């Protein structure tokens, strides 16, 4: 049961992400990303972290992605402009970008190898172990991580002000 759902979620996740970066329409990208987030939160639930899953959905899907949506609608740039110039120039112009893609592939392989280098026989995430409750998280968050919490809130405040200042159309 868990196995099935894991592979299902994983598949959705990977495919959605690939599509996010794989096509040119930002609107579609946004929605695909939402899908991948949903899959991710599914994985969190599997990992016995429903809290994280819900936070993921509430904050990412409920807030951040809406923000992206607004910007996409506001700027209304449906698809990114196709690379300029003839085929050759396009090829070479695109050179570094493709190189980057290849590089990231290499990176993935490296990580995979690193994991293999580590013993593959890690104990599975069996459902037997008790899942930490929201209560535990809260206690720890507000004690050990109290300062970080406050700092983050300040950061958000700053970000808010900054965003408003930056995006405001200066009056003239």
């Amino acid at each position: 049961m868990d196995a099935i759902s894991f592979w299902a979620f994983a598949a959705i996740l990977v495919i959605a992400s690939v599509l996010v970066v794989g096509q040119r329409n930002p609107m579609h990208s946004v929605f695909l990303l939402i899908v991948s987030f949903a899959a991710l939160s599914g994985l969190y639930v599997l990992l016995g972290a429903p809290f994280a899953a819900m936070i993921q959905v509430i904050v990412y899907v409920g807030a951040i992605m809406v923000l992206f949506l607004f910007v996409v609608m506001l700027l209304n740039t449906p698809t990114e402009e196709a690379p300029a110039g003839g085929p050759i120039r396009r090829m070479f112009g695109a050179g570094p970008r493709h190189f980057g893609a290849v590089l990231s592939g290499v990176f993935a392989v490296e990580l995979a190898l690193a994991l293999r280098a580590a013993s593959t026989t890690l104990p599975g995430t069996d459902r037997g172990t008790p899942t930490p409750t929201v209560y535990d998280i809260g206690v720890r968050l507000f004690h050990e991580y109290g300062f970080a919490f406050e700092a983050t809130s300040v950061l958000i405040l700053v970000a808010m002000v900054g965003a408003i200042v930056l995006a405001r159309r200066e009056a003239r």
Partner: protein
Amino acid sequence: MSLLLIPLLPFVGFLVNATVGSRLSKSTSATVAVAAMGLSFGVAASVVWSLVHVAPVAGVRALDAVVYTWMQSGGLTIPVEFRVDPLASVMILIITGIGSLIHLYSTAYMHEETDGEYARYFSYLNLFAAFMLVLVLGASFPVMFVGWEGVGLCSYLLIGFWYTKSTAVEAGKKAFVVNRLGDFGFVLGMAAIFATFHTLDFQQVAGRVAQLPAETTVGILTGITLLLFLGATGKSAQLPLYVWLPDAMEGPTPVSALIHAATMVTAGVYMIGRNAVLFGHAPLTLDVVAVVGCLTALMAGTIGLVQNDIKRVLAYSTVSQLGYMFLAMGVGAFAGGIFHLYTHAFFKALLFLGSGAVIHALHGEQDLRRMGGLKRELPITYWTFLTGTLAIAGVPLLSGFFSKDEILGKTFASGHTVLWAVALVTAFLTATYMFRLLYLAFFGARRAGPEGAHGPDPHGHGPGAALRPHLHDAPPAMAIVLVVLAIGSVLAGYVGVPASLGGGNRFEHYLEPSFQAPTMTTIESVLTAAPPVTRSESAPPSESPETEMALMGASVAAALAGIGLASFIYLKRPTVADVLAERLSGLYRLLLGKYFVDEIYDALFVQPIKRVSTVFLWRGVDAGLIDGTVNSVGFAVRGSSAVLRRLQTGSVRAYAMSLFVGVVAIVGYFLWR
């Protein structure tokens, strides 16, 4: 805590006027400033009251207030600590009391200034008061030094208050630089003290000095005290560093009254009194102090005889009175010196403010030769000024008499007959030039032509403003202050009536604890410390009342003679003055030129330094070495960056790429290592 409040209140006043002052109306900022001082005075009074009723602990009567630990390194711990003992109490009363009066006076005197300037003036004045109080209340050298430098700064700011007047600015700079010389000595003295006693707290220093067997350490102590005295000469305008004070008269008159007569310039005297025990152990220094003081007194007096600027005369008289105080300190009559300081504060402030009233009435006219006959026109000013003059001249039963006589007596008693004689002569001179001033200003006929208000005109009246038929006397604010001070300078002396005149000389006894080492020491150490201490105590071998009376008579005679001479020359035969000037033209010019000290200094120090700075420091070091280095570094950087900047393609993707390549490389390295 209230102790801390004393300097804090003026400081708050300063903050207010300095920050929002320019937006406040004149009346508001004036109210703030005066209120700050007034409150401070009230607090000071209450503190002194409680001090009088506190029982001496270990021979020390003092109230402490530690604010916080300022610095701590190794064996050195300096708390910001305020301490009020009898000596300090007298000082704070003078500062806050006279200070408040002068603030009040200024409200009227500076009224022609624009709002902003007005506020600026009062902010400076308040700041000065705050620093002065810190200076006086500081319980250790560093704290005192803060105040010491602070008042220096304020005096600089206030001398150059009318910064559009080049002379004022020059004078300010001069004062600043000359004071630096003194402070240099002061700082070295501090360092030496810490090296010797491992503490900078006055009481502890005194205590440890008392423990030292005098003979062994005379050398060190002499050195230390001489350095400190250098500082004192700088601040209190003694030879050789007195030159800045006369020029300081460029500042507004109330400033001259407060800073350059009543309070700041007496800081040096106070500092010596504060370290009485220390100085007491350095007989040599004491003699130096006495001689320097005496010479200063004489020289300033002689110069004062011929000056024509009303304020300069007063300035020189200040210098000479300060000389008196140092003389007193030098002969070990610490109480006497402080006593004179205290009375002097009254009548000299009074005189300055009186002259201020005159200048105010004449719209900035300061030249005695253009005055005269003001007696009828400015009655209040005249009478108060007269009181002040009598007081300073040492006419019996006025404050000046008691203090000056005290000093003369102590000097004679301490066996410095020569100094005594010189001091006597100075007393005579004092009387003379003060009455010359009085007569020239108030008697005879107006000598100011239609071109009346030339010369320094700080109030920005156009020329011919003096054409006005009637001169207005001091406005109420000023008049009140003048009267109060006049009363003060009459009565101030009576706290210290000498025994021979049937007074208990309570003042002296009140102050005495401040000049003795705290007896926190063991008996034998006190004994070892005994011989010098007797000398430092302000109780010299008492001479018989007859001699005392005789001395008194002498000083009175000197004073009266001076008055007589002055009235003879400037009332009976006004021509005589010019005749004398003709006859002794050499001497006259010498005096008029203030012994050409400024010129000498200029030739001796200023010019050479200038030359060295231009040729070597500027052309050689600065332009050649420093600029050369800097520029070459700059060129090097520019050259290299011309190459490196090519990396800055400006494309975000490129940056990300480089970063990521790095990541991949590093991970790979750790993988295939």
